[in-house]
C-alpha cells in the first residue's frame, strides 16, 4: 500500500484501529517475556545485579534516537510532499520520544550511582543524550507556542531538520570535548562483548519497546487527528454563532 493512501485520515484511522491492539498485545507479551528473562539472566561478573538496568536503559536510548529520526523523516514529508499526516506523525512522536529519552537518562543515573559512584558524570555519551533531551523539549515548546496546527507543523519541521543536521555535530564535538579533558576515562571505548545470556533479554525487551513505541505513536496520531477535527468543528460552530 502506498504512503499516499494514508493521506486519507479515514483510512488511517481504520488502519490504526486494527493495528493498535495488535501492537499493544505484542508489546505486552515481549515486555513480559523480557522481564522474566531479564531477572533470570545471570548477574554480570563485574556489575553484578545492576546490569539488569541495561534491559530498560539501552532500548530506551534506541527508541529515543529512533523517534527523532522518525520525526525528521516525517517533517521532510511535511515540507517536501505536504503529506497531511506527516506533521501529525511528527507531533505525536515528540512527547513519546522525549519520554523515552528521559527514561534513558533516569535509568542511566540510577545505574551510574552504584557503578561510578555518582548519579551524573559529564561523560560524552550522557551529555549528548542530555542535549538530545533539550532539543526534544525545545520542539515540544515550539509545538505549544504556535496556535495554528499547520503553521506550527511547518515551523517545527524546520527546527527538527536543523536539529537533525546538528545532532551528529553535537555528538562529535561532545566526544572531542570529553576525550580532551578526561583522557583516562572510566568508560572503555569498546567494552566487552555482551554474553548471549544477557543479549537475549536485551533483544527481546528492545523489540517490546519498539512495539510499545509504535502502539503509543499510532494512538497519539489518532488522538491528534481527532483533536484537530474537534478544533475545526469548534471553529465552524463559533463561525455559525457569529453569523447568527
Amino acid at each position, binding site marked *: 500500500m502506498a504512503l499516499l493512501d494514508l493521506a486519507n485520515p479515514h483510512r488511517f484511522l481504520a488502519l490504526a484501529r486494527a493495528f493498535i491492539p495488535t501492537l499493544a498485545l505484542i508489546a505486552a507479551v515481549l515486555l513480559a517475556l523480557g522481564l522474566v528473562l531479564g531477572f533470570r539472566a545471570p548477574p554480570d561478573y563485574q556489575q553484578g545485579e545492576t546490569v539488569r538496568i541495561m534491559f530498560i536503559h539501552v532500548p530506551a536510548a534506541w527508541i529515543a534516537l529512533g523517534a527523532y529520526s522518525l520525526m525528521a523523516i516525517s517533517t521532510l514529508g511535511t515540507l517536501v510532499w505536504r503529506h497531511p499526516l506527516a506533521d501529525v506523525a511528527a507531533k505525536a512522536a515528540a512527547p513519546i520520544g522525549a519520554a523515552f529519552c528521559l527514561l534513558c537518562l533516569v535509568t542511566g543515573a540510577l545505574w551510574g550511582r552504584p557503578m561510578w559512584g555518582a548519579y551524573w558524570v559529564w561523560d560524552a555519551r550522557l551529555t549528548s543524550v542530555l542535549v538530545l533531551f*533539550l532539543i526534544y523539549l525545545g520542539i515540544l515548546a515550539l509545538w505549544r*507556542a504556535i496556535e495554528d496546527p499547520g503553521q506550527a507543523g*511547518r515551523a517545527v519541521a*524546520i527546527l527538527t531538520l536543523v*536539529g537533525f543536521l546538528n545532532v551528529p555535530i553535537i555528538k562529535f564535538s561532545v566526544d572531542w570535548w570529553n576525550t580532551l579533558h578526561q583522557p583516562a576515562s572510566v568508560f572503555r571505548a569498546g567494552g566487552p562483548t555482551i554474553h548471549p545470556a544477557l543479549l537475549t533479554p536485551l533483544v527481546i525487551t528492545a523489540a517490546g519497546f519498539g512495539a510499545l513505541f509504535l502502539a503509543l505513536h499510532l494512538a497519539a496520531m489518532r488522538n491528534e487527528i481527532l483533536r484537530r477535527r474537534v478544533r475545526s468543528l469548534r471553529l465552524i460552530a463559533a463561525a455559525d454563532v457569529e453569523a447568527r
Partner: protein
Amino acid sequence: MIAALRAVLARDVTLAFRVGGGGGIGVVFFLAVVTIVPFAVGPDLPLIARIGPAVLWIGALLASLLGLDRIFAADHEDGSLDLLLITPIPLEAIAAAKGVAHWITTGLPLVVAAPLLGLLLGLEPQALAAATATLLVGTPALTFLGLIGAALGVAMPRGGLLVAVLILPLTIPILIFGVAATTAAVTDPLPFGTPFKLIAALSLASFVLGPIAAAAALRQLRD
C-alpha cells in the same frame, strides 16, 4: 541585487544604532555577566583566570542570544517584512544580509569588548588574544544559527525566551571548540589550530544553513 542587499544591511545597522542602543546593550550585558562571576566563585584570581575563557564565551553566547528575536519580529510588526518577501531578490540573500547586519551590531561589539573584559578576569596576553580570535571567528556562527530561531519566533508575541531555548542546544559545538581553542593556546599540549579551524568551519556552515533555514521558516509561516 548587491545594491539592494547593501541597502538592507545599511538600514538594519542604522536602525540598530539609533533605536535602543543596539550593540551597546549587548556589551553592557556581557560586562554584567563577567562581573557577577567573581561574586559567585569568590575573588580567587588564579581560579578566575583559569575559568576566564569559559566565562568570556558563556557571556558572549548569552549576550548574542539577547537581541535575536528582534531580527525579524520588528520587520514583521511594521510590515516591512511583507515588502522584503515580495521583492524579486531571494529571501535567503536578504536573510543573510540581515544576519550580517545583526552580527555587526551585536557580535562585533562583543568581540571588541572581549580583551577588556579578559583583563578583568586576569587572563594572560596569549589567552586574551586567543579568546578574542575565537570569538571573532565563532560569533558569526552564533548569529547565523540564531537567525533560524529568529525566523521561527517571528510571529510570537513573546518569542525571546523560546528562541533562546531552541537555539542554545545547537550552539554547544561552537562553545566547546571556542573554549577548547582558547585553553589550548595557553595550557594544553594540544594545538590551537584544530579547534580553531573547526569553529571557522562551523561559522561557514551556519552562514550557509542559517539563511536557507530562516528563509524557509519565514515563507512557511506566511502561507
